[in-house]
């Protein structure tokens, strides 16, 4: 469904992604794990086209998307929930959610999408008229995921949804991702929370210094000595 071939990306002179290739199939949940500054967010930015300078090929459902604008990528149903939520703090929760359906693929189904998201996240319905800036960390993450779902994604990319959340809230978020997954959504989950996210994954990649180091199914990687040593501290 999504395929990156030999992607290299740069911030000025600094190369962040090095010959990175990866693939996600329809219906899968794939986890990308890696330490801080490994290039995970940069990879997502390349896919979403908010980073300009990179080389290589990115295809989505057999369309080349590496030449597109960010809004055109969204039109294809390739949706990113960014690291740090990036909500619009001075807009209400409801306005935030509705903007998730801005692209032409879901603009006209705004009402139905909102009903769906409210059904999945009843708390967001309670908070609908509150400013997004006043949400707690866990709620903000839910709002961000809800906003992503508003776009009616074909592939949902979640960048560190558990970042900065209390362990119990992390479990809640992981549960939510599981539920979304059950409805057949294809998901790319970027995480530093290795144990939780690998349990969830069909397949996983390990990224280090901008390169893919390992690939395997979730369980394999959880059991592998490298991952244990590097990320689980065992």
């Amino acid at each position, binding site marked *: 469904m999504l395929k990156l071939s030999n992607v290299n990306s740069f911030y000025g002179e600094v190369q962040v992604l090095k010959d990175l290739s990866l693939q996600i199939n329809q219906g899968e949940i794939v986890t990308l794990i890696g330490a801080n500054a490994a290039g995970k967010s940069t990879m997502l930015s390349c896919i*979403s086209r*908010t980073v300009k300078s990179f080389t290589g090929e990115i295809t989505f459902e057999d369309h080349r998307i590496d030449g597109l*604008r*960010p*809004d055109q990528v*969204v*039109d294809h149903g390739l*949706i*990113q929930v*960014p690291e740090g939520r*990036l*909500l*619009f*703090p*001075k*807009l209400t929760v409801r*306005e935030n959610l*509705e*903007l*998730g359906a*801005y*692209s*032409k*693929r879901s*603009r006209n189904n705004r009402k139905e999408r909102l009903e769906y998201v409210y059904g999945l996240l009843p708390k967001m319905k309670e908070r609908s008229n509150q400013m997004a800036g006043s949400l707690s960390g866990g709620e903000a993450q839910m709002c961000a995921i809800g*906003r992503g779902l508003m*776009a009616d994604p074909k592939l949902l990319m979640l960048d560190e949804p558990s970042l900065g959340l209390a362990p119990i809230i992390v479990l809640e978020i992981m549960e939510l991702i599981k539920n979304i997954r059950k409805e057949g959504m294809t998901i790319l989950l970027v995480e530093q929370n290795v144990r939780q996210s690998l349990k969830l994954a069909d397949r996983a990649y390990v990224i280090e210094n901008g390169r893919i180091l390992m690939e395997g199914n979730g369980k394999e990687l959880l059991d592998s000595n490298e991952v244990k040593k590097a990320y689980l501290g065992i």
Partner: protein
Amino acid sequence: MEQILQVFISGILSGGIYALASVGLALIFGVVGLVNFAHGEYLMLAMYIAYWIFNIVGLDPYQSLLINLVVMAAIGYITFKVIMERVLDSDHSIQMLLTLALSMVLQNLALMFFKADYRNIRIDMTNDIMNIGFITLNTPRVLAFIIAIGASVLLYLFLQKTFTGAAMRAISQNGKAAQLMGINIKSIYCLAFVIGTTLVGLAGLLISPIYPAFPTVGASFSTLAFIVVVLGGLSSVPGAIIGGLFIGVIESFAGYFAGPAYQQAAYFLLFILVLIFKPNGLFGRS
């Protein structure tokens, strides 16, 4: 007492125009992130358009309102596409130099083509007055005020109530997130710029029956709009509306109590005080 009320209302009437001249600047700054020093020049252009249509075709500024706005929108669109779009990702200093240069170019083009003469539009209504109780008001100023405040409030409602308006507010809060929503931010930038220049053009048109057009007429309004926008909290449209009214009243009272020479001094003084004590603007929150 009656005098004071008269002075106050006169200030409010000017303030409506100042508000309209400023909301576009606030919008362009808030959404596009562009500090547009050429803002007042669009007011100047609209005044000349009104003047020439009046002299050549014989339509007064109110009759030529729609044509004027369409032309102003087109000019705004062309400036955005030809000039502004190229510097969207550039440094603020580059953008400022560019809009400053644009303002000088437009002023000097006006000087070249239209000369330095003051161009007045004298229509029947120019000296009309109306009496409300003991208060006497100049009809074109009242009309200008009503249309100006109406247009400013419409802009506010557009931002608050429409989906496109929500997209504009979203961009001003987080451009990257807005892109991830599938908002084509360049086209929204363009729209915000066009709305901004058209509204300041409307302000120019509205004062054209009572105020002369000359090549540097925009400059004084630019300064004023910048003060209003800073008072109002930079990117806030309602802040700019209230800030405009406020400056109008200050100016009016300064003129009444201290003399016309002190009008500008009064709001510059206020401006400096605000920058010292409330740098986020009178109505801005920290």
